[in-house]
């Protein structure tokens, strides 16, 4: 689509206008994506490390009320809950994050529609940015993305020089959004930004996801799962920081004798009690089976069901794992 240019100074002004317009603006902070009140504090660095957690919490909050209730003598009143309908803009998202909504939207809409998620995504503008970071844990290129992928971005930034960004307008939603700030933009030259983006170093492709899929289909029982499982600590750090893990729990919590709310909270398949039945039976009773579920869900089941790999290759789960379990390495070894 179209391409424009924005100077860094103007980008700060644009951000200030977004905040001033009453929208929520999210930008990468030191270790997290944070809601920003001060546009001048935003640092857009293509070489920054991916934040520790993804920004999925802004569309699929870590804790979210789905309804409020009030108990009477033997009656109950239900009050609806719903997301705040505020325009939210994220700026400087890495390509391994931007693609997450495309993937998540599948499960949240394949039959029943989760409007808590949908309404937030509808109000979300994703301004992605080219990435020049890469460490041993990155593997976006192995799951169909790349450090210059525009997938999932409404607008995509490419630094042209020390003072200017190329602004690629990727979607209609992005165009409609950026048109309101056209005074900060000048016309761009796609060939220039292309030159920059083509020079970006790509992480090496670590595996062929199709081969991994087929190997998983044949190796549900395999000693490697127990090997990983014995070292894994059964936390859910890996699921909670992941941009596309979407498991949740539903719990009620009272805040008075008669009132309370029903919450939808993040959960993860690495917890032992995730699948534990009330009778005591647990289909995934040991950690090896749970880790097997993690890999299979991401690289096989989700692919079969929804046609997408449930992984953007961001490497967060591994980077943050207390015992250095590396999903890229494990998946790359899913071969005979």
């Amino acid at each position, binding site marked *: 689509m179209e391409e424009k240019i924005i100077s860094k100074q103007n980008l700060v002004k644009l951000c200030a206008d977004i905040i001033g317009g009453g929208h929520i603006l999210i930008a990468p902070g030191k270790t*997290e994506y944070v809601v920003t009140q001060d546009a001048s504090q935003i640092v857009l660095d293509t070489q920054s490390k991916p934040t520790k957690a993804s920004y999925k919490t802004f569309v699929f909050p870590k804790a979210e009320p789905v309804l409020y209730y009030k108990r009477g003598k033997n009656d109950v009143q239900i009050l609806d809950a719903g997301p705040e309908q505020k325009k939210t803009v994220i700026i400087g998202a890495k390509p391994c994050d931007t693609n997450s909504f495309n993937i998540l939207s599948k499960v949240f809409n394949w039959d029943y529609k989760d409007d808590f998620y949908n309404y937030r995504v509808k109000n979300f503008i994703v301004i992605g940015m080219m990435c020049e970071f890469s460490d041993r844990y990155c593997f976006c290129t192995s799951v169909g993305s790349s450090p210059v992928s525009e997938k999932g971005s409404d607008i995509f930034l490419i630094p042209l020089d020390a003072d200017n960004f190329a602004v690629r307008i990727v979607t209609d939603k992005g165009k409609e959004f950026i048109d309101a700030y056209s005074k900060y933009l000048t016309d761009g030259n796609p060939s220039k930004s292309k030159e920059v983006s083509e020079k970006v170093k790509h992480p090496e492709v670590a595996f062929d996801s199709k081969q991994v899929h087929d190997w998983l289909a044949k190796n549900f029982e395999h000693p490697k799962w*127990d090997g990983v*499982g*014995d*070292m894994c600590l059964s936390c859910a750090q890996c699921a*909670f920081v992941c941009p596309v893990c979407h498991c949740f729990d539903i719990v009620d919590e009272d805040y008075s004798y008669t009132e309370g709310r029903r*919450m939808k*909270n993040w959960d993860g398949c690495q917890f032992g*009690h995730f699948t534990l039945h009330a009778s005591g039976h647990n289909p995934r009773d040991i950690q090896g089976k749970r880790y097997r579920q993690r890999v299979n869900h991401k690289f096989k089941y989700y692919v079969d069901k929804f046609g997408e790999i449930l992984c953007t290759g961001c490497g967060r789960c591994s980077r943050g794992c207390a015992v250095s*379990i590396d999903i890229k390495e494990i998946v790359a070894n899913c071969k005979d």
Partner: protein
Amino acid sequence: MEELRKLAKELLENKTVAAVLGYVEIEPKRTKPIVITNPEDAEKLVFNEYCLNNLAVYLTKARIKNLAKQNGSVLKLGIVAKPCDIHAIIALIQESQLKREDVYIIGMNCGGVAKDFGLEYGADTLASKCVPCETHKPLYSDTTLGAEKETPKVSDEVLDKIRALEKMTYVERFAYFKKEFDKCIKCYACRAACPLCYCQRCITDKTIPRWIESSPHSRGNFSWNVVRAFHLSGRCIGCGECERACPMDIPLSLLNRRMTETAKEAFAYVSGRSLETPTLVGSFDVKDSDELFM
């Protein structure tokens, strides 16, 4: 390193141990935990400033414990342990989670470890747990390996921060911790990485009644982080694994360290230092002051 590999190989070969918990290098300045049962694999073992994990966490895991059971007899589990890791082993023995004879401690002399993988090791990058460490040599071991080393001397920032927090008003202190705890996502990596969080059923998982709200919002997070600190007071050995595991960078060691300092001042007790002393909770005396922890 060679003595470590040789010892591990021997122990496995002569069936003194069924398995060795140790570290392997995955790239320069980065290691990860491994459990080896095959003597041939002993050559993979390493020990250096990047052996950050406290492997004692594995000693209470069912499947690791089961490794010790071989053809009817029960062998020991070997563990490569820094002095601070040995504190955890001692604490587990004090708390009857383990018997001394269950483990073969390959104690390592230690001059400190790095804050994180990939960093150049030195005074600036010394792990905060190593700053107040007074041990450096294994207090208990079956074999001690490695040369004694000097640890860089740096100021105790965690303690300074604690003292600063103590000077704040209650309201300020509350605000500080609220902001930190609000970041918590309830992934329970802190609990999973802690060698002393070994409960089969943690209080947060109990639902009838539900003691701790499972939601990761202010209230639920406060109860979780505070209850966890309380459950570890007088028990935490200060290995810092919880803080290292926390993806949200919550300064958990401020709480744990403060509890440890309090126990030290009031009872001259530090967890995991002696097999002869009972646990702090186990040595409760009605005459003990109860104004300490608030």
